[in-house]
């Protein structure tokens, strides 16, 4: 009872500091729980495969899906005049096709790789 009473007294004497303390404690809890959830999700290798995005490079896709970089580059039909670090968007531009088409082709290739495992 005395502990509860002293807590009430603290809140009465320092309403602003108490509110800040309470709010910060809620956020600490929220972030900590989220961090644990993300870590658990990340621990599963199947969840670590990124869906293809326009900013990804062939090497990035290869690493994320644990595939040989050359095979991914071939699946993306990277033109020979491409820069050293082409992105999927850049590859689409060079090939003169929409990004969505390159991503669809890549997804089809990745699906066959998933089945092969």
């Amino acid at each position, binding site marked *: 009872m005395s502990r509860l009473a002293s807590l009430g007294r603290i809140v009465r004497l*320092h309403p602003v500091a108490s509110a800040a303390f309470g709010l910060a404690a809620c956020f600490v809890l929220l*972030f900590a729980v989220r961090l644990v959830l993300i870590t658990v999700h*990340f621990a599963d290798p199947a969840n670590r495969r990124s869906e293809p995005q326009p900013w990804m490079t062939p*090497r990035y896709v290869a*690493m*994320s899906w644990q595939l040989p970089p050359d095979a991914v580059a071939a699946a993306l039909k990277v033109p020979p005049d491409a820069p050293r*670090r082409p*992105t999927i968007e850049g590859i689409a531009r060079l090939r003169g096709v929409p990004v969505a088409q390159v991503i669809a082709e890549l997804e089809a290739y990745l699906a066959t790789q998933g089945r092969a495992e």
Partner: protein
Amino acid sequence: MTDWLIEMLVRHGAPILMLVTFLSCLALPVPASLAMLAAGAFSATGDLTTGSVAGAAFGGAVLGDQTGYAIGRAARQPLLRRIAGRPGSARLYDRARHMIEDHGGTGIFLSRWLFSPIGPYANFAAGIARLGHLRFTLWGALGEAVWVLLYVGLGRAFADDLTMAAQMAQDLGGLTIALGILAVAGLWISRSMRRHRRHRASCPGRG
């Protein structure tokens, strides 16, 4: 913004990262942590080299800190002239200056990586309060090294899923800020409770 930044980073490499960390030290709203995470990930894939990524991020940050400090120093005289006629502001400035003199090195170190959102303002404050330049530079560089290693390392470790690594970094940032506010509020309450108790002990007649 994010996709565009990553695209620029892939296309132009380390110089973009250097520019981003430089601007972030001057309180400009650029996603420096995300850029370092992405650069770390691209160093793991072999698209960029780890040395160039770490060097560019560190170089940009140290240059940015020095620029912020110089801006603070240049603003010192005009600021002092402005607060000269106001005793309240002058007293506040004096207290802040004493605090920076006593704890400035640690403050600069921690505001580089643990409480990085206040980093740019700490640079300006250090310049205004004339924190020793060598002390500022050494603590600052040490802190920036921790910041760069932390985020580039995180980007490398979680390179397979950059989206998730970014979420993780955002959470870690939020957690440290919340912990900081918790500590400050706790300290504030405990100090004023002590003062209150002392006050009551010295005049027992009043409740």
